[in-house]
Structure formats: C-alpha cells, structure tokens
C-alpha cells in the first residue's frame, strides 16, 4: 500500500522563516535529550497526527543529508511505534522549499563508490518503509520538491526521473503526483508565508486524519511505476515480456538520441527500472543504489557538480550591495539584444525605457517583448492581466525624455565604436550624476568606449547573450577606472534579471568572445578543408555542444562573426589565424547573414523545422578550398582541434588575469557559449582529461598548422606538474 500522499502548494518565493510554538503539544518519546540534539527534524503531535518538520539548519533549502536521513529514520520509527499516533504529516519549516534533493556537498564528500552506494541504500530503506507505512503519511509540500525530495514527498514518476523537469504545482495535480492543492494565502493576522504554512499543515492534518479514519480512500494503491507512468491498459500490456522489451528499447533509443550518449544517468535509470520490473523490487533497489554509486563517481557527475557550485558562486554579488538600487532602467537600441534585455527587466518590476532611433525599429523591439510575455501566457505561466501589467513597465520612445530619472542606461546599439561614442555623449548630457552607463558589446573594449566619457568610473560592460531571455549568462566587464559601486550595481541588476554572472577584466573580446573566436576560426578552416556543415554540426553536437558549430555561426550572425574576427584578428594576429576570414566577408556580401536574413550555411524558413544546406555556399567554399591534412583530420581530431583551441584561449585568459577564477571561466563557457556541460567547462575539462594530453594534442596540431595551436604558458605549467589543478 502506498500510504504516502501529498498536498502541494502553488509556490511563492520568500526567505521568511517560521518561528512556531503555540497551538500544539510537543512530545517526544525517547526522552528530551534526543529532541534537543535533533537539528534537522523535529515533530509534534496534534491529536493523533504526528507533524514531522524538516528544517536543515543554516540553509535556505532542505537537502537530503546524512544527518537528515538518520534523524528522519529515528523519528519515523518512533511514530510507527507509538500507539497514540495514527497518521503523520511531513512538512518543511522553510516556506518555499520542501526538500530540494540530495545534498551535493554530501555526495562530493564521498570518496568511494561504496560510500555512495551505502548512502543510497540508507535512503532507499527509509523510502521503502515510508511507502509500506502502516500509518498514512501525508507530505505537505510548499515550494521546491526535487530529486530525492520528490521521492519522499511523492513516489516518483518515470518521466520525471528521466528528464529532471520542474513541474508546477497545478500540473503536478493533473499528473496525479499530488492529491490536493493549497493556494497561498494573503495577509491575515500573521505574515502570509507563515500563515500559509500553518494552513497547509492544518489541511494536511485533516487529510491525514481522514485517511486514518478511512474517510478518504487512497485511490493510488498500485505499485510505483504502474501507477504513475502507465494507464490501466498499458499496465496490462507491460505484463507481456515481449511488449516490455519493446518499451525498454523505445525509451532507450529516445534517451540516446536526446543525450547523444554523453550523459550516463538516464540510461542507468532505465537499467534500474528494468531490473526492478524483471527481477523484483529488491533487485531493483540493489541495482539502483549500485548504479547511483557508480554515477556519482563518474567524470560527468564531477563536472556537473562543479558547475552547480560555480553557478551558486556566480549568483552572488561579490561587490556587496550598491549604494543606490537601480529602479529606472533605460536601454538604447531596440534590436534583438536591446529588446531582450528589456524583456528580462520589465518582468522583474524594473521601469524600463526602450529607446530606438526609428519607429520601425522600436515597433519591432516592443513587439519582441510583448511576444515573449505572450508566449508565457500561452503556456499558462502568466495570466493575460499579469502580462499587461508587466508590459506597462516598458516605455518605448525615440527621444531622451525621462532619462533624467534613469539609474542605469544599457546601450545595445550597433557594434561600431564611433556610434557608441556618439550615444555615450548624447546620454551623458541628459542622465543624472549617479546614473551608470553600461555597454552591451561583444567585442569592443570598454575602455575604448569609455575614452570619451566625462565619468569613466560610471562606465561598465554588460555583455548579454542572445536570445537574452533564454541564455542565463551575463558577462560583466570592468575597466581600470570602473568604480566598485558601479560594478556592484551592474551585478545587482544582472542578478535581478535572473542571470548567472561572471565578472572579467577589460580586453579585446573579454573572455567569452575571445574563447569563441579561435574556435570559430578553426570552424572556417575545417569548412575550407571540405567538411560539410552538417557533418561539422554533428561532430560538435556529439562532443556535447548543444548547438553545432556551423549553426552557431548562423545563429550569432555572420556579420557579427566577421566583425569579431576582424577586430580580434588585428589584435591577436597569428593566434587567431587558421581559417580565412574572407569566407565570412563573401557571405556577408551575398547577404548570407545567418538566421536573421533567412540564409547562412543553412536556409531558414518561417514555420519550417527542417534545415537545408544553402547550396549557394558551394561556390564560396569551393573558391576558398584548402587541402585537408590527413594526419589531423579524423573525426576525433576535428573535434579536438576545435575544443583545444577554445580551452587554450580560456586558460590564456586566466593567465592574463582577464578571468579572476577558473570557476567563472567554466560558468562563462558553459552558460554563455554552450561548452559541453558534461565536460564541466574548459578548466574542469583540463583537470579531468589531463593537461598533458591536451598539450600533446595541441603540439601535434601546432606541428601541422602553426602558432595558433601553441599551448599557453599556464597550460604548459599544468602539463609539466601533474599535481597542479585548477580545482583543488
């Protein structure tokens, strides 16, 4: 019998913590000392219902840690042993978070496979007990309930196990994951979050009593998988071995296609479920814990955990709180970037001016913001009313009216230094003294832009990535003169916009563009050597890049790529050589600007998903054709030519002090440029793959092509002393 039930709550975010005391009897069955020593879990008894509160100390979220496991086991055993208690409610003391999942720190602390396996088995045991609990257990969930938390709250569904999706409460109800929804309450006699938690508890207690008294019948009394994933009919079909084999095969195929075999976890999950169904649940559990242990020990797991830690780091403002909160934002240029920045600002409540030079440009930009919001309405993430009130934060205009109130101006005009200089001067004439001028440029050095400024300490670079509403990264560029408060303000705005932020020093191409440029140069070279764009795309995606290299050029825009290649080529010379930029020049002259013009390496048509190669490219490619060097042109070599140039340049950025930490470098590469997440970023990749191996490869390519492959000093140092790691 699955006695576990869940009551969800439409979550609302807040850091308010509940202090509770009144209204229930605190009881403890093993003596008061145990109660005092419990730090993660405590429980009280209301009538015949035990209310178990989960509260990881000194943390915003509850995670499944060793301590929590053992205390939970203790508490549940007491509850099962007690005669007075007939049912139990599990609830978090933290509004907005039930259990966020396993404690990553706990997992990273595990040195051996056995340790993890053991942890996993402990968790299984208690979950199994929960599932077989003779007394009804109701999970009252407010906010995030992910991973292992979901297993505690609601026995998990197969679909969720595989993709790790976040499901909104109302959808969870529809999927049958939770039984009842409690809507958040407004202000009453206590802060809303506090009262909402109380109310959730009250409802859960009533529900638990109802279950214990058999007034409410547990409808979901089937086995784990059957209940949640399969309907009655398919459940029957699953009893036939042949059908089962077909299902496994199908699921496996689909997973392989989606992950390209780069992420081991989904396939292992299928294995485990298979074992569970074919050989019984005990074997399934055993296999689960072993596979879990194996997974934790993989490179992929280390890489992803590293990214998690890096992301946490990049979600903090290391400059502290700015003196003045930015409330009024102005954006210059309503193009793709400008409108995108506007979109992620208005929905966070920033009053935003979107200024463009022409009405057509402005119209397009405003429509982009509206469409972005309206898409959310279609997905039911917003109501039409919320959309309208968010949209009213946006003012579209052609003049500088209202700039006297702006706290920050972000310019996103065309990448042309003289134009940037002109708008900077125009803007400085109308903005107040405290106002920050941020430039969204992907390659122009900020200090050059700031050269004409009356107040260079207020000038900073904020490099967003396209599409702004989807790409999480924001690269903030500080010059020598940028003041600390200006940086603090820019980071605060970026965090408000929901961005993951890396802060880098000024220089041509900063960090991200600079890493990408040599790789792009190599892309051109490879294409010149006769590799078909489709083949190149499949080589890069199978290496773990989310977007193929040729497609990436089309997405970024061929003209932008040309601009960057020329600018950086001038500065870095040979190191950025390899491909012939003439390819890009010819493409631009023919109007093949990539997706935005409908043609690039591929042909793009509205409403057509299939991408065809642009056959007009053949003549351009033919005219620039170079003979491939068969020694370094295997599929793997092609992949590594691209990746090693990227990695080499990234390490160079750290060496030159453009980057402050390797962690920021990894976050920037993964979240901004799509560096394969399974590799964890260029620095993690060097650590896990081995600096020596990378240097060897570089040297091999150097021999074949020249200086663009010369390993940088820092990388060479790491290769020479194997103990040196970017992450200790």
């Amino acid at each position, binding site marked *: 019998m699955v006695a576990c039930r869940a009551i969800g709550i439409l979550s609302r975010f807040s850091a308010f913590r509940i202090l509770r005391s009144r209204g229930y009897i605190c009881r403890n069955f093993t003596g008061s000392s145990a109660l005092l020593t419990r730090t993660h879990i405590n429980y009280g008894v209301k009538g015949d219902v035990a209310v178990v509160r989960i509260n990881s100390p000194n943390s915003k979220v509850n995670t499944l840690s060793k301590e929590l496991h053992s205390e939970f086991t203790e508490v549940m055993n007491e509850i099962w042993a007690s005669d007075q208690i007939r049912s139990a409610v599990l609830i978090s003391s933290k509004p907005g978070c039930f259990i966020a999942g396993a404690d990553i720190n706990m997992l990273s602390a595990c040195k051996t496979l056995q340790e993890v396996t053991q942890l996993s088995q402990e968790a299984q045991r208690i979950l199994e007990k929960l599932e077989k609990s003779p007394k009804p257990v109701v999970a009252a969930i407010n906010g995030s309930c992910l991973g292992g938390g979901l297993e505690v709250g609601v026995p998990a569904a197969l679909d969720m196990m595989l993709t790790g999706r976040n499901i909104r409460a109302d959808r969870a109800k529809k999927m049958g994951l939770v039984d009842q929804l409690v809507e958040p309450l407004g202000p*009453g*006699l*206590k*802060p*809303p979050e506090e009262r909402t938690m109380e109310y959730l508890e009250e409802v859960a207690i009533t529900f638990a009593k109802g279950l214990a008294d058999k007034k409410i019948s547990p409808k979901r009394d089937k086995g784990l998988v059957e209940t949640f994933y399969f309907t009655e009919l398919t459940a029957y079909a699953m009893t036939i071995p042949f059908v089962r084999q077909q299902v496994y095969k199908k699921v496996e195929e689909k997973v392989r296609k989606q992950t390209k075999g780069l992420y081991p976890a989904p396939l292992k999950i299928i294995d485990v479920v298979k074992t569970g169904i074919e050989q019984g649940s005990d074997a399934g559990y055993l296999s689960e814990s072993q596979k879990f242990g194996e997974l934790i020990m993989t490179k992929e797991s280390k890489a992803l955990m590293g990214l998690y830690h890096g992301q946490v780091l990049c979600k903090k403002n290391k400059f502290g709180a700015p003196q003045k909160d930015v409330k009024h934002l102005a954006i210059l240029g309503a193009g793709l970037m400008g409108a995108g920045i506007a979109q992620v600002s208005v929905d966070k409540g920033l009053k935003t001016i979107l200024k463009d030079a022409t009405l057509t440009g402005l119209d397009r930009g405003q429509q982009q913001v509206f469409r972005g919001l309206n898409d959310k309405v279609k997905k039911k993430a917003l*109501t039409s009313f919320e959309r309208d009130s968010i949209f009213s934060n946006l003012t579209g205009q052609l003049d500088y009216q209202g700039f006297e109130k702006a706290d920050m101006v972000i310019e996103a005009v065309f990448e042309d230094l003289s134009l940037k200089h002109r708008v900077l001067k125009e803007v400085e004439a109308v903005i107040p003294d405290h106002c920050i001028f941020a430039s969204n440029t992907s390659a122009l050095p900020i200090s050059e832009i700031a050269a004409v400024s009356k107040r260079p300490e207020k000038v900073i670079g904020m490099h967003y990535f396209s599409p702004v509403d989807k790409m999480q990264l924001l690269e903030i560029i500080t010059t020598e003169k940028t003041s600390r408060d200006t940086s603090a303000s820019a980071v605060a705005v970026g965090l408000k916009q929901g961005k993951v932020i890396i802060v880098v020093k000024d220089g041509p191409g900063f960090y991200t563009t600079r890493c990408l440029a040599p790789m792009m140069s190599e892309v051109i070279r490879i294409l010149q050597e006769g590799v078909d764009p489709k083949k190149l795309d499949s080589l890069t995606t199978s290496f773990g890049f989310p977007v193929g290299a040729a497609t990436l050029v089309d997405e970024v825009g061929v003209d932008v790529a040309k601009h960057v290649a020329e600018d950086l080529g001038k500065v870095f010379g040979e190191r950025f050589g390899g491909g012939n930029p003439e390819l890009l020049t010819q493409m631009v002259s023919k109007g093949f600007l990539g997706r935005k013009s409908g043609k690039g390496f591929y042909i793009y048509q509205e409403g057509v998903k299939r991408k065809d190669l642009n056959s007009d490219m053949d003549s351009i490619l033919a005219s620039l054709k170079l003979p491939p060097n068969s020694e370094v042109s295997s599929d793997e070599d092609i992949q590594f030519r691209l990746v090693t140039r990227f990695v080499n340049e990234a390490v160079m950025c750290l060496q030159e002090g453009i980057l402050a930490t390797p962690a920021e470098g990894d976050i920037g590469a993964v979240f901004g440029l799509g560096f394969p997440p399974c590799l964890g970023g260029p620095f993690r990749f060097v650590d896990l793959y081995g600096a020596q191996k990378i240097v060897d490869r570089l040297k091999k390519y150097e021999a074949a092509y020249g200086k663009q492959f010369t390993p940088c000093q820092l990388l060479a140092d790491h290769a020479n002393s194997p103990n040196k790691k970017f992450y200790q």
Partner: protein
Amino acid sequence: MTTILAYPFKNLPTTSKWALRFAIRPLSCSSQLRAAPAVQTKTKKTLAKPNIRNVVVVDGVRTPFLLSGTSYKDLMPHDLARAALTGLLHRTSVPKEVVDYIIFGTVIQEVKTSNVAREAALGAGFSDKTPAHTVTMACISANQAMTTGVGLIASGQCDVIVAGGVELMSDVPIRHSRKMRKLMLDLNKAKSMGQRLSLISKFRLNFLAPELPAVAEFSTSETMGHSADRLAAAFAVSRLEQDEYALRSHSLAKKAQDEGLLSDIVPFKVPGKDTVTKDNGIRPSSLEQMAKLKPAFIKPYGTVTAANSSFLTDGASAILIMAEEKALAMGYKPKAYLRDFMYVSQDPKDQLLLGPTYATPKVLEKAGLTMNDIDAFEFHEAFSGQILANFKAMDSDWFAENYMGRKTKVGLPPLEKFNNWGGSLSLGHPFGATGCRLVMAAANRLRKEGGQYGLVAACAAGGQGHAMIVEAYPK
C-alpha cells in the same frame, strides 16, 4: 446585554438627571457595566460643515429581494428598477417634475438597457426632461449612485436626486464566443456571395461555445467565493464561526421581517404573477444542517459554503435625496443626513474583500468620530467568512501596523449594534441595489433604536470598498 439596556439613554446630555439616575443603577450591579458608554456624549454633536449644503435622505424604498430564478425571473432589469421608482414616488409623493437627476447603479448590464436608469425613469413616468445615468462599481454601485447625487447637491448643481440600484441575476447576458461574433460581424460586411461563402467555410463547431459572464475577478481570474475562502483561511476563521454568523444573520432578518421592521420594502405586483410583499431568501436553519454542506469553492477542505454566502438575488432599490433646505421647503421631514463618505481600494487578489476594514477608520477620522460614536453599523455581508475576516482585521494591531499604516487597530464594531435587522447573507444581495438598502437600514434603525450616527460599509469586486456616515435627522 448591558450595552443594549443602556442604548436609549446614552444620547442624552450628561446633565440630564434622568439619564444619571438610570446610569447609576447599572453601576451598582456589576463592575463590568462601568465600561459601558452609558452616558458618554458624542464626540461631535453634528457633522454639518460650514459652507457646505446638508444633504438629506427623504426616504428610500426597495422591492422585495428574491432569490434569482423565482418570481422575477421573466422580468428585465428596468422592470425591477421601475418598480422601485414608482414605489418611491408613491411613498414620498414627490412631484416628478422637481426631480433634477436620476442615477442608478448596476453590475451585470443588460445590453439592451445599458443605461437602465433612463429606461426605468421613462417607464416610471418621470419627465422626459429629467436626465438619468447609470454607474457601475461592483457591489457598491448603488453607493456610488448615492454619493454621485450627494456631490451634485453639495456642489449646488442639483437640489433633488433619485438614486438607486438594480440587479437581475435571473437573466444574464450570455454571449456568442469571440470567434463567432467576429464571423457574424464579418458576414455583415461581406459584399459578395463568394466572400460570404468563404467566411462561412471558416465556421467551426466550437464557435458555438457560449461565453458566460464570470463572477471572477478579471485581473486574477479568481472567483469571489474562492477569494473569500482564502481570506477566511488567512484570518483563521473557522467553518463553525462562519456558520454561526450566517445563522445570526438569518435569525435577525427573520425577526425583523416578523416584526415588520423592514419598512423600506414596497410590494411589487409582478405582471402575470402574485404581488410580492417580502424577501424570500431568509431561511434560518440549524448549525447541524449547515454543517452538512460541502464547501462550494475550495474543495474538499474549504470553509465557504452555500449556506454561509450571500445568494444570487434579484432586486432594486431607490432613494430620494435632497438639499436639506429644499426638503424642508417642500414640507418633508427627512429621515437622515448623508455625511462623510470614503472610497478605498486595495490588492484585488489577497485583500479583495477587506474594503470595510480600510474604509471604516478613514471615514471616521474624516468625520471626526470614533467607533464608540456609531450606534448602527450596517455592513454588506458578501460572505460570513468575509465579515469575520474583516472583524479580525479590525481587531488586529498587527494587521493595522503592517498593512494599514496605523499605529493601533481599528477596533471591533460591537456585535449588538451590527446588522441587527439581517444583512446580505439573509436578505439577499442584488449587486447593484444593496447600497441603498444599507443606507435605509441604518437610517431606519437609528429612528427605531435611537442613536445619532450610523456607519455603512461594503466591499466590492476589484478590491474596492466604501464607507459612509449616516446621521439621524433630529426628530
């Protein structure tokens, strides 16, 4: 108990020996009585303001309020409004030609009579030279009609105003879907057969799905009952408390009905049916019966049920208001003054129904009165849970400090002065008409029970609220 006993005497001046004599007696009975404001004088003798015309209520009437779908179900809104108007003419014998202006409130508009005030006035035989307009402000539409009239009189634009409200929930406009409407409008414009045929070919069966008028907030898509249930939960109002309060409302309404206190009702001969003489929604039940009901909005654990909510109602009301000197010149003995009033608004999601809490202290402060000065409270009862949540909010220092910007709580209206003749829960709540009923109940109660000041307050969709001071006209 004691305060009820003390009622008739407390308005007398302290110097009156008669009052003192009575006041001493309870003092000797129990210490608790000392607190009773038996001989307390009003903070203010009257609310008349220099250089502003006094506005008086000559009288007001209403049709009986009926559950929708009963005797009024075949009428149109202007029929009900007309009945209230002719009833008012009959009751006050006011010559039609002296009425300067007519204002009515309504919520769900019948599209054929969108200015229902004008249609009803014409039908009731008012001069076609008397302009009329219709206002809408959800459940405080009639309040808005009255205060609009007060403004017209106070500013010297008019002397005599008829204000009122009407709602007919038995029939509501149910529309074709937007797609269907668009198709029909396009068909209208189509010039050739070919165009028409190509338009008709676009027709799909789902175009026929009708669009019902929602009793939901447009901004939040939440129905009012759902919001009321959340509000009750936020203030920890129990199901039992709500049922008890609803029972009180029904019992008091029944008592008032039996004792003939609901004198604002005018009988209405419904064409083709019997004359309707009294409200038909008053049904005192028992707590046991009420406890059996399932929650109506938040299932299965909500607390708002059909029994502790106001029901869909048909009804109309009308009130004759004049400049005081005009009324006196015409030989009327007015019933009450309409004094300070206040409109408030707040968050339509979480504080949808808290209007009375916000409006009450503001209107009292504006008038220079305190809660103790009020002898008759007439609050609109949308839901038991709403009234009780407002009570808890008014009684909470925490709420006052955190949400109202006040240092101390508003204070609780004493229950023995509160909706003594029933309320919207029992009498019914025709959205557009309730405001006039509240004012007449306050005025009539002050005359009957004694006392000088009445306070009318109501919440409304959109998170709005209203409060007004009604001062008894000296006898």
